[in-house]
């Protein structure tokens, strides 16, 4: 079961990576990352509930996991709402950074309460994949070239010939 879980979430990690081609709108990439993360986490949640019902996950871990998932889903909802209001790359960067910070905080503070290694590794893979996708988008948003000022066209469409000092003196 542990291998199955690891395999499933490893595949999701690949999915999150390949679903974000460089040539698409970065806001759309962020939305796709949010959607793919929601799929991965929903699958994990369904598995965890089944495992708990089968007596394979202790009650305390089950409560801790569901609390974490509730927080993660809330972060996802906030991210989606912010993406709907994005007008600029700076807006998108703010939305991504907020979600990235929240997910990083959840990984560092909330997962310590989970004692079952199998459950912990499953949720860690799902959250780390989400974190990696957001980090990748953060990097792309941060490196988008800023628009440059239009170059003044002074030759009015004609080839400009630069005169040498000698030619200038002769004219």
């Amino acid at each position: 079961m542990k291998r199955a879980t690891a395999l499933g979430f490893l595949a999701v990690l690949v999915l999150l990576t390949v679903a974000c081609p460089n040539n698409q709108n970065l806001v759309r990439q962020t939305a796709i990352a949010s959607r793919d993360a929601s799929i991965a986490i929903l699958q994990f949640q369904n598995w965890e509930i089944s495992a708990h019902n089968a007596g394979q996950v202790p009650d305390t871990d089950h409560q801790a996991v569901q609390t974490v998932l509730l927080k993660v889903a809330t972060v996802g909802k906030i991210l989606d709402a912010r993406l709907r209001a994005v007008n600029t790359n700076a807006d998108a960067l703010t939305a991504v950074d907020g979600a990235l910070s929240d997910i990083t905080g959840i990984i560092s503070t909330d997962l310590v309460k989970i004692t079952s290694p199998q459950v912990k590794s499953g949720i860690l893979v799902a959250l780390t994949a989400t974190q990696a996708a957001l980090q990748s988008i953060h990097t792309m948003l941060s490196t988008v070239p800023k628009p440059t000022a239009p170059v003044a066209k002074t030759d009015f469409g004609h080839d400009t010939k630069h005169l040498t000092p000698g030619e200038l003196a002769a004219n």
Partner: protein
Amino acid sequence: MDPAQIANLIALGIQAGTQAYAAIRAAHSDVVPPLEDVLAQADANWDQIIANANGQLKPPTT
């Protein structure tokens, strides 16, 4: 590993493979889903996770 676990492993592998294939195909397609469609799918999943979690965290009724 018992047969049920092997079957579960195969099912997960097929599911993951199908999703990865769909994602690769979507990534290389000229047809890009509208942003609102993607966000609506994400929101529906997040809502389901929230509903499931609230259902699990609810104290048992006596």
